[in-house]
């Protein structure tokens, strides 16, 4: 039952694919950003998962505890979250500007307007 035991990774794969699908399939620019976030979140989960060591506790040194989880992935993901937030902010800012310029945030409508101009 090893495959079931790795259910964290199944979640990662599911989230990743779902996010990816949203980015590709949706015309709405905001929804694309949401998809991108889901996609990135799956990676966060992945990192956290392999930082976990079975039987380990939080990496705070204390009496009688010998096994700790690896703290490094958490730190890395903290950075990655910051990057993700920055990306989202920038993406949304762009969407606002696009809305001002085109009056819509639907990709197909923008495309039509570009063709016309």
């Amino acid at each position, binding site marked *: 039952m090893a495959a079931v035991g790795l259910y964290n990774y199944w979640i990662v794969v599911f989230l990743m694919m779902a996010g*990816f699908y949203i*980015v590709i399939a949706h015309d709405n*620019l905001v929804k*694309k950003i949401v998809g*991108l976030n889901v*996609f*990135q979140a799956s*990676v966060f989960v*992945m*990192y956290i998962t*392999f930082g976990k060591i079975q039987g380990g506790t939080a990496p705070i040194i204390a009496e009688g505890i010998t096994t700790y989880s*690896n703290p*490094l*992935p958490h730190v*890395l993901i903290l*950075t*990655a979250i910051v*990057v993700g937030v*920055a*990306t989202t902010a*920038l*993406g949304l800012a*762009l*969407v606002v*500007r*696009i809305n001002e*310029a*085109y009056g819509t945030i639907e990709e197909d409508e*923008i495309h039509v307007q*570009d063709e016309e101009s």
Partner: protein
Amino acid sequence: MTEHLAALQVVIPLICAPLCMLVRYRDWSWIVALFGSWSCLVISWLLLQQVMTGGIISYHMGDWAPPLGIEYRVDTVNAFVLLIVSAIGAVVTPYARESVRAEFGVNRVYLFYTSYMLCFCGLLGVTITGDAFNLFVFLEISSLSSYVLIAMGKDRRALTAAYQYLVLGTIGATFIVIGIGLLFAETGTLNMADLAERLADKPLSRTIGAAFGFLVVGISLKLALFPLHLWLPNAYTYAPSVVSAFLAATATKVAVYVLLRFLFTIFDVKLSFGVMPLDSILLVLAVIAMFAASAVAIFQPNLKRMLAYSSVAQIGYMILGISFANVNGVAAGILHLFNHALMKGGMFLALGCFFYRIASVNLDDMAGIGRRMPWTMAAFVVGGLGLIGVPLTVGFISKWYLVLGAFERGWWFAAALVLLCSLLAVVYIWRVVEVAYLKPAPENAPDIEDAPPSMLIPTWILIGASIYYGINTDLTVGAAKLAAQQLLGAG
């Protein structure tokens, strides 16, 4: 002081960025950026000298010893790339003054210089770092700021181009994180040198294979390898002139460097090209990129877009060289990295000059421009001759080594294809030459002067360098060969 050069290379532009934001008054932000880019050039030159004579430099950030601490590691390969990036930055910044003012309005220039310095810092950081995760962070710094830079274009399509780039770029970056994460899961380290050592002992596992795949795809997206190049043409077309020039000359080059680093240093040559059939995959993609993108370039009415597609084709040349996986081939790839940065940077700057004077880069508006702006057009033509690969230009040197690498590998058909593809470059360059020189200017065309010296001189510095390094190849070929030997010698 000298032992901190490696850190200063990144720290100086990083400090300059907020400074640009703070000193909003007129040209002061430009002066800050100028200081930042020129001091970076000096530093990268010193670093290259040190590396060529004294071997690899290892700098421990905050004095934390690797593999735990972040290490900056400079060898011939990235010292050379650092020099390219900072040299382009140093040439583009003086040019930017007039061009940015004209395209942004005086009140908004500081925003440009802030993101420009951030982008510069990110690119240098990606190149200099010896830590895989740190590489990702710097990659995102440079990418995020370049989305901003592209979105600053005047045309509203710049916004959608930037958005498209943001989505694809983020996917690429996330792929890279996944790859790095898998490598970390397998080896427990993020330091590149350490990774290479630990991976060498391990048999190929599914994790390593997956990491390899994610990394290659992610990086290929960043470097716009066909068919992952879709973001590039729009981004380069609608970005402000300076940005197109800067990104075309540096961003994709740095991505190519990252690919080299992963394929040759972190993974082994035997893994990349022996166990994984990457050589034949890269070969096929590179050849398709060369031909398809060149063919598309021929039909573009917008010259910036034409050059953008030409860039995709030229990246194909670099990847082709890498796929040969021998010293001459990899050296040709690295050499073309440098050479193409000079030519394409110079040509985009020339287009910026046109835009400055006639507010258009469409082929139709170029009629008779050869006589109205002789120096700018001459720069464009010389750059174009380089793209074709005419002797005495840098393009010829790249092609020489590329073809030699193909022969060495025994792929003589690839050699023939490289040269055949040059003919497509003849077509798209000469199309412009005919219009610019042989079509009379419209009757009502206003009298214009050539571009101002502050723009013309940087353009000609790059174009002149593309001639100089086509004749005197001591530095470029020497460094590229040394770099290729280091990369291949490790495996």
